């Protein structure tokens, strides 16, 4: 009885093996092999704003914002085990804090954006801290409710411009600051988180995700670690919110919109969950795609959801894992 005659055999490329560990320093070729993907990503991100026209520069801003949110989602979901369906809460908090400081007290952008990132992150963390006792599904549920709750809070108390929003905020000084502030933040967030995950902090977080009882038994305070992880993700989200409010010079309830929650998730699934760089790639693929479909109105959300479903069902590894495999390994069919 013959079950299957062939199977796919995967082997590391010789250069993969040679560039492992300290040996990578032995020749330029190995170092280039390791650095190429990283440098390519950085160079592409830095060069794109120079090549695009006005309209696509705005799209680039949106894509980079979604990329940062996707990064935050991926970090929380895959490294801290907290599935956050309400990323728009962070955007909204950051945006509202920086917008209000700028509008009511007239503080300059260079104060409001950093201040709002930290304050917004603190508020967002505070809102979710109570739910940290919950895991998995329960955390997802509560985080999904919170942005809707904040919207109804703003409408109910009619503070902060209520349904109208606040307009005429200060704009970012010029287009290059606009673009490169975001690119810089994205790169810092991406490489910072990647580095962090290989430090002790990241190792403990991953252990918490895999088996929190065991980590607790080792005398480590898991809640403290979860709070720190949450704060980092919220910091990224709030920065985006603060940035967006000054990019458009306007803020409103649409900062809590479902788009900010769902597109990053779609981007994460598409790019490859747990890779950190994957979500960034996913966001830069999805956002221009959805921009091209702007004419179809509501179809955009349907489209992201369908892409999301297709990837999660048929290609759960995502784009980056696939590319990574092709880059580091070769495959061939082999007789069994």
């Amino acid at each position, binding site marked *: 009885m013959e079950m299957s005659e062939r199977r796919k055999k995967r082997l590391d490329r010789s250069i993969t093996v040679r560039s492992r560990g300290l040996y990578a320093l032995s020749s330029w070729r190995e170092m280039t092999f390791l650095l190429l993907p990283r440098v390519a990503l950085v160079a592409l991100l830095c060069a794109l704003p120079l090549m695009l026209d006005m309209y696509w520069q705005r799209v680039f801003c949106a894509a980079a914002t979604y990329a940062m949110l996707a990064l935050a989602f991926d970090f929380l*979901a895959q490294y801290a085990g907290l*599935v956050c*369906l309400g990323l728009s809460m962070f955007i909204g908090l950051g945006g509202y804090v920086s917008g209000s400081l700028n509008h009511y007290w007239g503080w300059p952008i260079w104060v409001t954006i950093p201040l709002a990132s930290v304050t917004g992150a603190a508020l967002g963390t505070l809102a979710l801290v*109570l*739910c940290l*006792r*919950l*895991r*998995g*599904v*329960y955390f*997802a*549920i*509560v985080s*999904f*409710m*919170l942005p*809707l*709750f904040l919207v*109804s*809070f703003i*409408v*109910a108390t009619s503070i902060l411009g209520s349904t109208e929003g606040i307009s005429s905020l200060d704009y970012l000084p010029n287009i290059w600051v606009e673009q490169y502030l975001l690119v810089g933040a994205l790169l810092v967030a991406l490489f910072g988180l990647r580095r962090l995950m290989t430090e002790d902090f990241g190792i403990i977080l991953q252990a918490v995700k895999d088996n929190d009882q065991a980590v607790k038994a080792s005398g480590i305070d898991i809640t403290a670690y979860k709070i720190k992880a949450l704060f980092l993700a919220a910091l990224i989200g709030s920065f985006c919110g603060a940035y967006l409010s000054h990019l458009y010079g306007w803020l409103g309830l649409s900062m809590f919109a*479902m788009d900010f929650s*769902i597109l990053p*998730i*779609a981007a994460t*699934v598409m790019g490859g*969950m747990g890779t950190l760089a994957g979500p960034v790639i996913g966001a830069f693929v999805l956002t221009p795609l959805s921009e091209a479909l702007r004419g179809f*109105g*509501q*179809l955009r*959300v*349907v489209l*992201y*959801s*369908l892409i*999301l*479903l297709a990837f*999660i*069902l048929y290609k*759960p590894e995502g784009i980056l894992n696939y590319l990574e495999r092709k880059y580091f390994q070769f495959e061939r069919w082999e007789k069994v």
Partner: protein
Amino acid sequence: MEILIYGAVNSMIFMLLAAGFALVYGVSRIPNFAHGAVYVLVGFLTWSFLNDLKLPYILAILLALVVSALLGLIIYRFVLIRLRGMPTSEIIASFAVSLVILEGLRLQGIAGFKGFIGPFYSLPPFFDAKINVAGVFVDFQRLFILGFGSLILLAIYLFTHYSKAGLKLRAIAQDEQAAMMLGIHPDRTAMLSLAVGSALAGMAAVLVLPLGNLAVEQGYHVLIRALAVCIVGGLGSWAGTILASLVLGYTVIISSTLLGTVWESMVLVGTIILILLLKPSGLLGKQKELEERV
């Protein structure tokens, strides 16, 4: 008195909204985020059957319920079955299904489809009249909700305790491996639970929607209410679900008479956070849930 009666009706609405979600989660551990979408879809299907196909009301409702049960089957068979045991993916995938359905209902201009936007859609009440109950005027639809709601609860109880399929559902919920050894098919059971859960969402839609307008946004609100009941009550416990519906139903009614209806969702979230602080496993959650949640 008014608060008492309307609170009872409101509690029953909460109960109906949460029943399907609680059933699916209790049996198959699948958080069905498409619950609210099925609810709204059944509303619009009934509306289309009534107004476009000119079917009699009863027939329209029954057809819509059949479609919802089928939809539950399809969601499980083609989407969730591939993701069993991966909670993150299950949440994301069912949420995506929900978005496809809800935002799809808003699509315009495809195949002459006008999109369900605007306040023009509402289902007629079964029987348009009001009655004086102990000094308060209550319309018949609200009484229907109370009556049918109790019937549905009774039916769920009888189904899960006395029918063979219902016993299978409970067996899987209690101990999946032991149930599998006795020849109960976990996938088929989960499929059944999703079909029943979606049909329950449909029944809730048909009963509750005649009270107001049909709108796509309700899908999200229904989901939130169902989740609120489940969190407060403690998942997997029917008594908890009933108790939580009563608590939330009365809290919402009392707060909206005192503060105004805009505060409803805030009261919901406030209650949830309070419960989580005081008793993380929900009002009547069992030890098993506690282990999983804390």
